[in-house]
């Protein structure tokens, strides 16, 4: 991981409210792997302080990387006002990415909304490894379907689902997966998107005995594994999304709060008494 002051060399409002930034950093671009993320200081003097995490969306080899983000709050809003030639303070590449090898016979890349961000980078690497893969993209509506052409160009066959049926399957991408998995028969699924979607994808994968890796999102402070703030619950106990993830084997994730209680909370390692300064 590196901390760099990096030039923004390209910016695009891909659709209203969704932006891409291309940021120059040879060290980050050389060391990155698909599924890893960067931690960006988005405010310059605002009243919020923490960095914001973004998946690496694409790489300009040896030179730069691209992020793709939706404006949802003050951090992403500030980032959307960045101009070409502005300098950003970036830490990266962070986390553990997707695990893959050239031996995979076929992969299915399931993206919900902006979850496609890390999956395009993965798709490009799978192409380099000559692994056959199928993109499966979900969006609210046809106009919000991003990077379709890019996936279609390199993917075996690209599946699409929209909530309003304006393109492809009428319904969610998790729903589409459920209907098609038995004939696509991928060896492995790589998924990224909102948690309810990931949970369903994981369930389907499990039902059909297909390996599945999911990229999770949580709020983060440090991004490097120090503050222990971005915990998620796994069968091996709490794991940090920033350092142990953000990509996890879907079978390790405990999605239901009810399931947590007996395994962790009140378990022998957890002293239940409340701490007044709970650092």
């Amino acid at each position, binding site marked *: 991981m590196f901390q760099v002051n990096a030039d923004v060399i390209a910016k695009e409002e891909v659709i209203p409210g969704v932006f891409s930034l291309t940021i120059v950093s040879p060290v980050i671009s050389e060391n990155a792997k698909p599924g890893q993320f960067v931690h960006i200081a988005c405010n310059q003097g605002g009243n919020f302080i923490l960095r914001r995490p973004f998946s690496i969306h694409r790489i300009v080899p040896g030179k730069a990387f691209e992020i793709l983000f939706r404006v949802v709050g003050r951090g992403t809003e500030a980032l959307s006002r960045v101009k070409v030639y502005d300098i950003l303070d970036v830490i990266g590449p962070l986390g553990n990415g997707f695990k893959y090898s050239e031996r995979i016979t076929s992969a299915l890349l399931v993206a919900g909304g902006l979850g496609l961000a890390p999956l395009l980078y993965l798709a490009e690497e799978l192409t380099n490894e000559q692994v056959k893969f199928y993109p499966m993209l979900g969006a609210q509506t046809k106009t919000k379907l991003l990077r379709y052409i890019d996936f279609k160009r390199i993917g075996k066959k690209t599946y699409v689902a929209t909530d309003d049926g304006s393109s492809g399957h009428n319904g969610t991408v998790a729903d589409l997966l459920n209907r098609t998995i038995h004939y696509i028969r991928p060896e492995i699924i790589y998924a990224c998107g909102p948690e309810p979607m990931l949970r369903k994808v994981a369930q389907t994968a499990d039902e059909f005995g297909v390996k599945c890796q999911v990229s999770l999102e949580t709020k983060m402070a440090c991004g490097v594994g120090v*503050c222990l703030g971005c915990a998620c619950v796994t069968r091996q*106990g709490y794991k940090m999304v920033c350092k142990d993830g953000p990509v996890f084997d879907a079978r390790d994730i405990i999605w239901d709060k009810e399931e947590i209680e007996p395994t962790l909370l009140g378990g022998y390692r957890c*002293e239940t008494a409340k701490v*007044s300064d709970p650092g």
Partner: protein
Amino acid sequence: MKNPVMPASGTFGAGREYSEFIDLNCLGALVVKTVTLRPRDGNAPPRLYEVSSGMLNSIGLQNEGIDHFIEHDLPYLRQFDVPIIINIAGNTLEEYAQLCREIKGVEGISGIELNISCPNIKAGGIAFGASSRLAEQVTAAARYNTDLPLIVKLTPNVYNVSKIAQAVVYGGANAVSLINTLVGMSIDTNTFKPHLGNITGGLSGPAIKPVAVRMVWEVAQTVKVPIIGIGGINSTLDAIEFLLAGATAVAIGTANFVNPRVMIEIIDGIESFLRQRNMSDIRQIIGKVKV
């Protein structure tokens, strides 16, 4: 100490991660995340939430326990030429005492910081740091079981912090550090649920700095031992404020998450601050607030 700047417990782990960003040998000291007798899993997520000029956390003192620390973290830390301060917490006086005994004779630890924000189970769950009597007892229990310099970290969630400071000095503290986080809460107005899994959490960051400076100033009027000022320090001038209020050193917490290089920038910044004013000794500003 080479300089008066160190990380605040829990914001620097045991140094490994940030060693990729800065040279740990440049720090005045290295304070590690709280270590408890047995491993702790920590609290249920979500564990953090950002608020205006600060953040709430409810990590829950997640750590692997003292044995793991001595076996796995300390050997790593020993390679650096920096005083290592271990921060410990317990749920009973006996646990603090036992932790001190476990550390006895272990090579590579230069001091102990007591996190006394934990509830005393035997005293009905009231935090050690919230009562002068308990605070003095826990300090004395540690003092009896260690010869190392003893720093007691004070919680701001009390009515009169100076009284607690006085009590821990009676108990045998060689220094005090303050402040730990302020208890806070934040609610999601869409779901009506608290933002933290633990409901409440500790507020840190720039938002708490004025409270921390005030408390350091009050404590500096009351006790003679050195004070480590903590709370919302983000820049050189923030650190200078604490020194003026009476702190002899400062610890940096949340700001590390924002900028891993911040401590190095503050170390250099304090030096140039003094140089620009033709001062040769940091003592020329410690406690020199004009009131």
